[in-house]
């Protein structure tokens, strides 16, 4: 599903954020990217959704070399990838329903599909009944659930989560992790960057550890360290 082949990413010509990184993620896997702040976790996620191109090496997603992809095909790639962020990136002037519907609207889904899919996914993330609230009327955990709903509403093949529990207390974070596990069980491949030791240690999933842009460990059923 995802493959990095000797990938090097250099920012502004002198910051090497990732050095000669390679790994292979089969379909349906749940994988943690761990490492201290600045070690290159977010960089990997941004390479996977083609926000950036690497200076060297190849990135394969869903059978395509996305560095060689035409600019016009990037939206198609992104429709197969859901994104979740530490700061949720919700639109504050839109309701819960509208935030999730927006993701379908802007890829041109017709209204009847939106009316059917959005309540379904809001139910899945446990936000039934809160469709008309605005983000600032929700707790952090609830806001992150909205963002999970938005990422998952068009059933992507891959979910990229960048420190999704970073702003949440442990109990709330655990709720989000349960949700991601459930989504992973539907066959969605999940790549999650985190430095939350408790979560990594309790889940016993594959762990790729980074240190200053270099992969120093790649372990199945691993722990944080």
């Amino acid at each position, binding site marked *: 599903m995802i493959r990095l082949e000797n990938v090097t990413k250099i920012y502004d010509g002198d910051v090497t954020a990732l050095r000669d990184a390679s790994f292979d993620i089969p379909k349906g896997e749940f994988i943690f990217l761990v490492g201290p702040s600045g070690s290159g976790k977010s960089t990997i996620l941004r390479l996977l*959704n083609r926000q950036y191109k690497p200076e060297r090496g190849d990135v394969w997603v869903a059978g395509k070399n996305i560095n060689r992809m035409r600019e016009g095909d990037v939206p198609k790639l*992104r429709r197969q*990838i859901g*994104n979740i962020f530490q700061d949720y*990136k919700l*639109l504050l002037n839109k309701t819960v329903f509208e935030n999730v519907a927006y*993701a379908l609207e*802007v*890829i*041109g889904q017709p209204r009847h599909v939106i009316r059917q899919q959005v309540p379904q996914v809001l139910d899945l993330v446990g936000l039934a009944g809160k469709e008309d609230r605005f983000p600032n009327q929700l707790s952090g955990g609830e806001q992150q659930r909205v963002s999970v709903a938005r990422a998952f509403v068009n059933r992507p093949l891959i979910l990229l989560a960048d420190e999704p529990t970073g702003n949440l207390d442990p109990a709330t974070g655990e709720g989000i992790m349960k949700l991601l596990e459930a989504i992973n069980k539907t066959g969605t491949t999940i790549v999650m960057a985190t430095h939350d030791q408790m979560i990594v240690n309790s889940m016993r999933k594959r762990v790729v550890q980074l240190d200053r842009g270099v992969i120093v460990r790649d372990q199945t059923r691993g722990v944080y360290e």
Partner: protein
Amino acid sequence: MLSRVGYALRETWQGFQRNWTLTAASVLTAAVSLLLAGMSFFIQKAFDQVLQQWSNNVQFVVFMKPDATTDQIEAVKSALADQQASGVVRAALYSGKDESYEEFKRLFSTNPTVTDQLTAEEMPTQFKVAPASNDSAVINNLIAQFRGRPGVLDVRSPAEYVKVISKLSGFIRWVTTALWIVLLGTAVGLIWNTIRTAMFARRREIEVMKLVGATNWFIRIPFMLEGLIQGLIGSAVASVSLVGLNVVWTGRIKSVTAGLANVKDLALVHFIVGGGYVGSIVVRLIVLGALAGAVGAGIAASRFLDV
């Protein structure tokens, strides 16, 4: 498809509401520049018509001195008749003191202080002469023959006026064209700035749209539409003003020339630009306005989406 159109229109409308001061500035600049463009086309057309008319019936005027004797006038008259008989002159029109005075009174009918100061006695007698050929050598030769005759004050050929008028029209054309192009450039810049500001204000939405896989065109279209509509409103305002100005202008000329003999020969009436041509200017203004809007917004949108 329908939901996409609805989405684009809704976003465009909201863009206007969010940014109405910048929008108003863009629209006004576009309107002023396009009005100027319209006036420039209009003036060109009016001058072209006048020059066309003049060069179509090349003629010169032999002005007699106010104190020329009847004999001197008759001598010029018969010399012209001879030239007409030999085919050098196509037509010669005599205009005596009284005819000249009547025409003069009508032209200045709204201004009695002018008409009171002159009497029929002081009006010059004149001959309007239409040469058969429009070869300038032949005409100049003819003019020279009459210039020296006793009782002749002067011979004036419109060739001189044509030269002056076409120089003047060339100058006006140049200035107005330069002015409207600069102003239209400013309008494009203002529209560009409005759209850039609108996109910056909505950068979070744009980020989310890109991440969920909206195409660049999908993101761009409401903004481009916003710019396009700004340009179009500008051209609508300019078109309405231009048509209004044309109505006033035509009315003025018609009231000044009303009741005059030989109205068709007057240069003034050829400054009236017909409704059909004004219509074609309006079409040009709409195209220019739409282009200005689309270009300004297009540059803003693609620059913003690149980074």
